[in-house]
């Protein structure tokens, strides 16, 4: 099959999203089924792309309209993008299943459209090879995310959405200024060509541009102190959307950050940016972990935990070493899995028992044992217990951090992880050893999803070799900029 069909990854969600309003009359079930089918198709295509990229070992370069880069916009689906587009599609599919249970608020057709566009935006951010195109996809993601945050139509949701919008808006404007500076200095928007020319830019311009781009993306990537919107938005958004935020929306932001960071690694003052990012990432972890400690609302608690884990990924990417990037990608995969599990479990409890307050979790082990098992496994994995997946990626990140000479950052992050262990195990204790209750019927599809995720978590925990080799390839895709430039068939302009 022609690899150019990979452009369907962008085309299908976009087209189908605009068809949703036509289905309005068919009712809630039909629309949700429609979303489920679309996400399944997307997952199928993503699987094919993933197979293609990993069997040939070559990235797929999709040239829009047949124009060769840097004149045309290209999609660069290398090992990283192939992997994460697959994760985006699979998570969306699982959440499309969850939609049937979790989303009751009307208008469903708007929800379905935004849902597909959110998936599209993240896919685009990950797959694009053009920096302005990246901005466009980032805006699509962000704007759908603002709308979805407010979707529950409560006061808190509106407030959270507004905060998100204000901060996200400021962030993306600065991002745009940064892009403009880069364009002004290099005359190109193609990422490969920017990388090629990065060494020749006036160092001051390069540094300012990079700083602004990083600043803009740090809002999406939830780095301290630009992440203040995140806990509110996570808490207010519909449960499937929260899982998507945590599993891939923030990941797309942090990927973009890392991608641009490494593309610009030829810039002379690059190391300074790394120092700044390491400080921000370390503070992200610390502040978020401490904030989660006395949280009564479990969904919000896990939101803080998500912020802190993403800070850990940021730390890994900011190290500037191959080991760090590999470890960061590994953590991205693992974190996506466990946070889907956790938000699914917590969201399901909130739907069944009317809220995600810790009181509802007492006796959960007796009331909804399988959901409780899911939340428990997710919690243990998040803490970094061996035999679960996060153990390996956390270990990798810490070793890479100390190896890069930032033992203090590793020590601080680990100190914050102690706090994480405390709040997660308080939750586990509340679930299994307090409270009483009648056993409720648990939804079979959701239980199946949770068991599947538990199986993946344990499988990676026991035998991480496959996931680790994927992470290494994907990490190399980000870190090895020279290879990236070589892969993109530039028309011989510039260089």
């Amino acid at each position, binding site marked *: 099959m022609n690899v150019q069909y990979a452009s369907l990854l962008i085309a299908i969600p976009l087209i189908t999203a605009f068809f949703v309003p036509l289905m309005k009359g068919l009712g809630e079930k039909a629309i949700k089924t429609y979303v489920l089918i679309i996400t399944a198709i997307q997952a199928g295509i993503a699987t094919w792309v993933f197979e293609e990229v990993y069997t040939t070992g070559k990235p797929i370069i999709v040239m829009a309209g047949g124009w060769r880069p840097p004149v045309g916009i290209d999609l660069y689906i290398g090992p990283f993008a192939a992997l994460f587009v697959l994760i985006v599609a699979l998570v969306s599919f699982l959440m499309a299943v969850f939609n049937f249970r979790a989303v009751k608020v009307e208008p469903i057709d708007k929800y379905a459209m935004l849902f597909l566009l959110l998936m599209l935006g993240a896919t685009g951010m990950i797959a694009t090879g053009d920096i302005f195109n990246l901005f466009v996809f980032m805006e699509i993601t962000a704007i759908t995310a603002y709308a979805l945050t407010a979707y529950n139509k409560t006061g808190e949701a509106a407030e959270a959405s*507004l*905060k998100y919008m*204000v*901060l996200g808006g*400021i*962030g993306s404007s600065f991002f745009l200024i940064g892009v403009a500076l880069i364009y002004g200095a290099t005359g190109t928007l193609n990422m490969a060509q920017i990388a090629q020319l990065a060494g020749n830019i006036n160092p001051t311009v390069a*540094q*300012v541009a990079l*700083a*602004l781009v990083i*600043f803009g993306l740090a*809002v999406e990537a939830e780095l301290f*102190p*630009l992440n*203040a*919107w995140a*806990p*509110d938005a996570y808490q207010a958004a519909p449960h499937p959307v929260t899982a998507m935020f945590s599993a891939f929306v923030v990941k797309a932001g942090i990927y973009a950050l890392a991608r641009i960071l490494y593309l610009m690694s030829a810039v002379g003052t690059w190391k*300074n940016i790394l120092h*700044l990012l390491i400080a921000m990432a370390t503070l992200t972890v610390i*502040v978020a972990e*401490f*904030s989660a*400690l*006395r949280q009564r609302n479990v969904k919000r608690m896990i939101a803080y935990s998500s912020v802190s884990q993403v800070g850990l990924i940021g730390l890994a990417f900011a190290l500037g070493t191959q080991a760090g990037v590999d470890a960061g990608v590994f953590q991205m995969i693992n974190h996506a899995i466990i946070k889907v599990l956790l938000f699914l479990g917590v969201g399901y409890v909130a739907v069944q028992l009317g809220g995600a307050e810790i009181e509802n979790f007492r006796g959960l082990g007796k009331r909804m044992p399988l959901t409780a098992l899911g939340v428990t496994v997710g919690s*243990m994995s998040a803490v*970094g*217990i*061996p*035999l679960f997946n996060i*153990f390996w990626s956390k*270990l*990798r990140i*810490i*070793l890479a951090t*100390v*190896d890069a*000479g930032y*033992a203090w950052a*590793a*020590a601080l992050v*680990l*100190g914050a*992880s*102690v*706090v994480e*262990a*405390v709040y997660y*195990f*308080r939750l*586990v*204790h509340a679930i*299994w*050893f307090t409270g009483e209750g009648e056993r409720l019927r648990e939804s079979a599809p959701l239980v199946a999803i949770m068991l599947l995720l538990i199986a993946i978590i344990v499988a990676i925990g026991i*035998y*991480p*070799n496959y*996931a*680790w080799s994927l992470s*290494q390839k994907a990490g190399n895709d980000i870190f090895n900029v020279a290879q990236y430039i070589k892969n993109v068939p530039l028309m011989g302009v510039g260089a």
Partner: protein
Amino acid sequence: MNLLMVMLFAPLIAGFLAWLLDFKVIREVIGIIGASIPIGVLAYYYSTVTSESITYSLTVGGFTLGFHLTMLTWYFAVIASIVGIAMAFGMASTSKSSYDWLFALISFTGVLGVFLSSDFVGFFLFWELMTFGSFMMVLKRNRHESLKYFVLSIIGAYSMLVAIGIIYAKTGALDFNTVQKALRLDAMVGSISRGETALIYTLFLITFGVKAGAVPLHVWAPGAYSENDQSYTAFFSGALSKAGVYGFVLLYILMGAKLYTALGVFNNHLVFAYILAWIGAITVVVASFLAVLQEDIRKLFAYSSVGQVGYILLGLGIGTGLGFAGALFHVLSHAIFKSLFWLVTAAIILRTGKTRFEDLGGLAEKMPITFTMGLIAVLSLAGIPPMAGFASKWLLYEAAISAHMPLVAGAIFLGSGLAFAYVVRFLYAVWFGQRPSDLDDVKEAPLPLLIGMVILAIPNLVFGIAPGLVTGYFNRLFGDTIVGGNYFRLVTPTGTYNALLVTVILIFGLSIAGLIYIYGAKTRKIPVINTYQSGNPVTEEYNLSMRKNFYRPLAEALGFWLKYSWDRFYERLANLTEDFADWLREGFYNGNAQSYSWYLTIVLLILALWGVL
């Protein structure tokens, strides 16, 4: 499948199966089988391991996890496995929960893995696994105590992780062999600075200190040991705490030369070892005093356990071959006598449901076999020949004296005196004296629990009468004659102990006493009063008896010291942390969009100040 891996993962898999197939009897049988496999494999490997070490490696997630069975690791693994089987038999009686089986056996695999790992990744992995398993056992019963244990343990584990990271950054290796070579080389080259070496040492000290329960990191032990299934505590206190000891041994092996050159010598003692010796001595004294003052059997043995591990650290800190021999021997004897104590405690709690001395008494007639087992444990702990506990303590005395550490030796003597004081209390208050009327229909402990006790009692006797079996193994382990003599006779540069002779004399003496008792003594009827009162009436407001407040005068004498408590200090620290967390959250995530925008501005300002905008 490699036999070494079978042995390592058998308990884990058995635990998982027992959890999955949660049926009565089947669960217990699977658990016991899983817990017995390690000792079988170790026995099979005995003859091989004395001539060459057995290694195996796995590639997991880009790391090579190495395992090695050497004479040293075999020794530790055997101890853990003996205690592990005894635990499994004990749990078959005391625990009816598949949850317990799962996590107890997970921690069993964790302990074995810690001993067998030959690289830091595996060591850390199994260390965490062991902590996690034992933590879950406590979490079920007491959230507060379990979190205290877990937080301290995880701080320890993460300290180790940072230390491993630093070693990795400096040497580029994670396996013990390469690290050892690199650090030995570095002892001469000196590229790792003194400060960094001290940092690594301190980090490891925290890690292993927490697990071994060294003062002031011992505060988790009383709670975690007592709020548990006591059969599991046998393993927890007998084998799991030895992982900390093993860590210190490992520290010597890997970093000894480096620590010596970097930290130097003080009064003819290696500084790093001297620190360890004093930590051990302080632990012995503090924990033994606290053990004496307890009113609850479980708390008493918990503190006693902390104190006894202190002996081991002290022995390692002496730093001579004899010190090592004493310490390693005490690892064995503490494991077998303390685990025996815990199983006896498990039997008492199972049959009476009581844990405080004031509620117990006169059980010797009701539970004669359990009493005999308890007596063996008491004799061994108090260091009375011919028990294993005497031989190991004797070696420790010899080592301290011949290394010219009089103050440390003093700590051993004081600790022994105190140990005698608390076991006497246990002996009398539980087994003799008046029996409370509600204990009249107490039955003997169930059979599996008794089997567990016997498994532990036999080595107490065997290694007591023939301590040369153990020291002979050490001689081969060190490749040098540290302790001379034969199976029954120990010879050190300063003294000789003939266990067989002592045994024979003891049996002879006891026979004479028995003959006198049977033929000579007239039966007299006397009222039951406490020996402590010496026939004097005791007033109500100062009512001390063997069973209640027996050592109150001691507590009053120590009043000044007891005002200070590490436990309260940590609690306060934890509360401060929680308050700080609230302050941070309320201050930062204050819900105000304007202040959030300010954060953005501040970051932009930082970017500007940093010299660009």
